[in-house]
């Protein structure tokens, strides 16, 4: 279940790794009324995956990843409203914009570490939030940006009101990104990122240009976050200020920790459990649901540092020992 990469890791895709994709396709047929929620879950998985790359592998602790998600979301919305409603071009615009922002901000903030870095990530999110809030001509400000149309994907697949196209669109995009991230994690670059996380000083001492490498990882991660944001814009045909909120960054961090950090699939399990639990609890206990989310997180942090996947790993290891 571990995907630590490195020079002796077998990079081949294991059978169990097809499970999320089979499950995603099953959902499409079994739970057609839940497809909008499903699309949101898939989007957040992509967002969490982008965070896992820098947090789980690079060891960069950030509470500002919504800056890139939000940038992708707004750029995709503005692109659809002002340039063209072609969805793939919109995704590309959102991804590139967020990647560029990631590069510029990364060059500045990655000179610092620890708390200073954390503060700077918060500051950048706040800056982006205020820009979106004030630039009402472009973003609609507090009212949000809507009223744009997204054209059929490659001119063939129209976005329908049941969210079927949107869901499959999310599945395909997430699949492509998962494959890329997985390649990255298993590459020498991924191994060196793990090295930076494990011992920053020693990476300097083996001649690694640590700063440059972190900036590149940060840029890739920001681009993926922007892609997730653009995906949200296109599937919901609306952008609100929430996408740039600090709460979203925090929520994302919670989801990833819940699933398990630095394992690729923690980014799948976390958002799924969190958002489905949220959906269920919000219906059952409309006033207290956040309490339960908090309780789950406390339990995970106290008893299962590796998140849900960490618990599973430990359980499997125990079973194996018993059967011996």
């Amino acid at each position: 279940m571990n995907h630590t990469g490195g020079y002796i890791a077998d990079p081949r895709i294991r059978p169990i790794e097809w499970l999320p994709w089979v499950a995603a396709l099953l959902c499409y047929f079994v739970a057609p009324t839940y497809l909008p929620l499903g699309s949101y879950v898939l989007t957040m998985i992509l967002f969490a995956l982008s965070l896992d790359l820098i947090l789980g592998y690079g060891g960069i602790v950030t509470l500002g990843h919504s800056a890139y998600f939000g940038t992708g979301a707004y750029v995709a919305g503005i692109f659809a409203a002002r340039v063209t409603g072609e969805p793939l071009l919109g995704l590309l615009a959102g991804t590139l914009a967020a990647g560029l922002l990631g590069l510029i901000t990364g060059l500045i903030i990655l000179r610092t570490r620890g708390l200073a870095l954390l503060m700077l990530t918060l500051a950048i999110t706040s800056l982006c939030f205020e820009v979106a809030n004030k630039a009402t001509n472009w973003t609609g400000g507090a009212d949000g940006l809507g009223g744009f149309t997204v054209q059929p994907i490659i001119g063939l697949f129209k976005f329908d009101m049941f969210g079927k196209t949107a869901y499959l669109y999310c599945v395909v995009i997430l699949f492509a990104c998962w494959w890329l991230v997985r390649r990255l994690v298993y590459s020498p670059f991924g191994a060196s990122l793990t090295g930076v996380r494990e011992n920053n000083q020693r990476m300097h001492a083996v001649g690694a240009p640590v700063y440059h490498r972190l900036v590149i990882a940060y840029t890739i991660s920001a681009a993926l976050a922007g892609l997730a944001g653009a995906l949200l814009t296109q599937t919901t045909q609306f952008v609100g200020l929430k996408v740039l909120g600090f709460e979203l960054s925090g929520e994302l961090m919670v989801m990833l920790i819940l699933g398990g950090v630095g394992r690729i699939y923690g980014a799948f399990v976390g958002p799924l459990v969190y958002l489905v639990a949220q959906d269920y609890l919000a219906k059952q206990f409309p006033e207290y649901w956040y309490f339960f989310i908090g309780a789950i997180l406390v339990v995970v942090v106290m008893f299962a540092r590796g998140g849900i996947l960490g618990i599973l790993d430990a359980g499997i290891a125990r079973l194996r020992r018993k059967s011996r």
Partner: protein
Amino acid sequence: MSAALETRGLCKSFGALTVADKIHFHLEPGARHALIGPNGAGKTTFVNMLTGRLSPSSGQILLDGEDITALEQAERVKRGLGRTFQINALFPNVSVVDNVALAVAERRGVAWRMFRPASRYRDVLDESMALIETLGLADDARLTVASLPYGKQRLVEIAIALGLKPRVLLLDEPAAGVPSMESHRILEVLDSLPGEIAILIIEHDMDVVFRFAQRITVLTQGMILAEGTPAEISANTSVREVYLGERHA
């Protein structure tokens, strides 16, 4: 012939505290050289300036005659300056072979590659495995470093440095914290290091120093007190006074 590593008037102060005071130091190519001195003599500061972790207040550092004073740590490593750390500085949750492969991949310039799986870089893996075997760690190659006993971790520390194929190697207390039962293994490894590498060892354990070094430099209060062969140093009265703790009545 220029020295493998040389410092000219190297100084470092933290405010009013001077921890390195005009150090002129020569390390000959292929040397086996020890740097000794009491606690707080400035040995680690000196090493940190050599490797670029600290920048000196004034003075120059030359590697093979080339001024590297302004270069970053990574650049010095690329030019052949490797080091080990006094306290293990490893990648704890990563396998032994990966620990070494991270260094080998940096040296070979493939650590940027983003697409092909790392395990397909057979040359990196083979070189790392060969190094691990020469240090007698072949059976532990796939274990995480964190799960190894301390003495073996010290060997991994050396293996990582050797993975950089340095021309100058700085060993910061390689036997520190290792039980004497196991320290002979570290000494064996030190003895077997390739002769063309110039080695500067910083060590407290005098057995290790006198067995390994052909030249010794004594540092006290940021200054070079004496330099010479082991016989000269052990006969030097001021060294005995200041460092070996002997007092004349």
